[in-house]
């Protein structure tokens, strides 16, 4: 009943002859819709193909005419579990969770300082932060390797935690700064008039407002840390290997591997996909934070 009343009956709005402008707009909408779908499918297709391939036999996985119809099998997943995925997952979780936590602990006060409480030469500070991202990782891997080797931290998961924290911190500060800037200045003034200490202002007024933004930042950090390969493959071996390192173990130069690699990659992608799914609403809220003013 309630449903019927809430929807306006069609008869109330007589179908007026469509105006030309509206027609144009709807045609544009259709085109935009089509383009959005095409782009969406183009982005999704490789993922779809990966999942599909993971259920194939090796002989079906790489054929000149790609096979869409085949007899599905779980053999590849069994193979991945038999290869001992456990320690790699744990290492990835440790590296991801701790680096993200450290990024937030260090990044939130930093972003606060360079946005709402501008320190001297804010612009320079911001530039220093981001400048560390301008050097390609491959250019610094040799010194990093030598230093890590010298201090005896090769193949240690905490090395990755430190590196991932450093890797994500600049992006996090920049992202969170833009969210902090959205906080209305009057709120802060009010707080300072009330005599609230800085820490309380941050915790009780600012953070609740920008929590979707922090969430989005954390998720980006999680994704980057979870997928990071270059540091991991160069600095770890048997103790601290992470999921991406586990994945390349399936690539072989003398045999077939596409199906099993797809299965391993699907498993590796799953936690991030789930995290993204769970956080979907917050993420959209966070990423569009401040888009409309």
């Amino acid at each position, binding site marked *: 009943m309630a449903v019927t009343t809430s929807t306006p009956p069609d008869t109330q709005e007589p179908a007026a002859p469509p105006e030309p402008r509206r027609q144009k707009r709807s045609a544009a909408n259709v085109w935009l819709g089509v383009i959005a779908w095409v782009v969406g499918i183009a982005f999704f297709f490789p993922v779809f193909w990966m999942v599909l391939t993971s259920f194939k*036999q*090796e*002989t079906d*996985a*790489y*054929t*000149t005419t790609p096979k869409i119809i085949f007899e599905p099998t779980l053999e590849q997943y069994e193979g991945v579990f038999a*290869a001992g995925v*456990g*320690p*790699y997952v*744990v*290492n990835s*979780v*440790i590296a991801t*969770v*701790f680096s993200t*936590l450290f990024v937030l602990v260090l990044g939130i006060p930093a972003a606060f300082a360079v946005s709402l409480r501008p320190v001297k030469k804010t612009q320079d500070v911001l530039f220093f932060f981001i400048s560390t991202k301008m050097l390609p990782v491959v250019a610094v891997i040799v010194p990093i*390797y*030598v230093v890590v*080797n010298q201090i005896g931290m*090769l*193949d*240690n*998961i*905490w090395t990755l935690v430190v590196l991932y924290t450093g890797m994500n911190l600049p992006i996090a500060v920049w992202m969170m700064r833009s969210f902090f800037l959205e906080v209305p200045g009057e709120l802060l003034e009010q707080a300072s008039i009330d005599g609230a200490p800085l820490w309380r202002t941050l915790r009780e007024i600012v953070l609740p407002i920008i929590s979707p933004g922090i969430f989005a930042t954390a998720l980006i950090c999680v994704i980057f840390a979870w997928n990071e390969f270059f540091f991991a*493959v*160069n600095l*770890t*071996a*048997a*103790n*601290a*290997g992470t999921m991406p*390192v586990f994945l*390349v*173990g*399936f*690539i*072989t*130069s*003398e*045999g*077939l*591997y*596409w199906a099993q690699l797809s299965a391993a990659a699907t498993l590796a992608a799953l936690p991030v996909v789930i995290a993204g799914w769970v956080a979907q609403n917050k993420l959209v809220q966070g990423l569009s934070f401040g888009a409309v003013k």
Partner: protein
Amino acid sequence: MRGAARRRGRGRTPAVLGAVLASLALLAGCSGAGALGAAEGVETVTVAIVSNPQMEDAISLAPQFEAENPGIRLRFVSLSENEARAKITASVATGGGEFDIVMISNYETPQWAQNGWLTNLEPYMAATPGYDRNDFIPTVRDSLSYQGAMYSVPFYGESSFLMYRKDLFEQAGIQMPAQPTWPQIAQIAAQLDQGQGQRRGICLRGKPGWGEVMAPLDTVINTFGGRWYDPQWRAQLTSPEVKQAVQFYVDLVREHGEPGASQAGFSECATQFGQGEVAMWYDATSAAGTVEDPEESTVAGRIGYAPAPVVATPSSGWLYTWSLGIPQTSPRKDAAWRFMSWMTSKEYIQRAGRDPSIGWTSVPPGSRQSTYQIPEYQQVAGQYAPLILDGLQRANPQQPTVQPVPYQGVQFVRIPEFQDLGTRTSQQVSAAIAGQISVDEALEQSQNYAETVGESYQR
């Protein structure tokens, strides 16, 4: 009430979070989850290997070794060839010490032995009764030696040969010569080529990489009489012989080769040949295990084998071996040798052959001469096993081509710069196969690279 409950609930969340984090940190131990489970008094041996099928078989048999040697626990780091090579080289060269056993090849072993990075294995072999060092195929053994001493021991060895579909040859009334030449193979490829979108004549690698397209192409260059350098280290990549060889290879794969050739490597060709989409395939002898496996190939049992095709040299097959060495830095050399000698022993071949999940078709070939005397192996691999042994015995890394060369190696030049030089050259060749540049352009550019490297050896 409700407020209190909520407050209590809220208080609990950080506590739970803290507990989870703490247990994660504990789980991480001091270095990572892979370090867990080591008991006291047990030596942990870390093995870096290349993730090829035979190595995966060895990993699956490793628990048997651990059961027989309770004092030793094994951990494997299995990486794809390129990653493994980069990782192992970095670790061994800098004394990183992550690994007690490394899987390397006849490209690295003599160079690294000379640098003092590897342990001389002769004393260990002498102290291991029944290991029988002289059972290794002589050319393989020599390729892993420096100043007469072995610095790594072969797990398996391979040469290159030509695989072809016996049934298609029969239908077309073609006879494979006992020692085919490349022009003959080109002619047969044209005959059996059904055109685009259908079965093609031959599969040849075209993917960039010194271990990809350069491996088969180098054997073609050698047998056409080409070489990388003359004895004075002057680059020879624009010589008529090299030009002719590369033009031949590129033309053959472009005209009668597999689709997407510039991206095809071993795995891609294995699939295409195994699916009956090409009539011939020239590649590593280790391919036999894959294409004769009914689970991975629809043409198993219908394959014939011929020696690597030649032009101006009596033989042209390559020589490659994946072997195990102990870095000088390892503090666990005795335990490492215990496992290495187990994995490269005669008994291992028997163990793998009898294992129902591995079987005689997949035992590591090309390491020991005695493998070729095993009746069960002869029975399943009789078609191609003698060719592998013959290819390895005839390979000549000292004199790979017609004219003398200042380097060693068949499908590579055994100098440290070759990884880079070979890869750059392969990118040019791959571009020529894709039709983006001409063979002449590819070789001009490669010649520049080769000259730069050669200059550092000229005195």
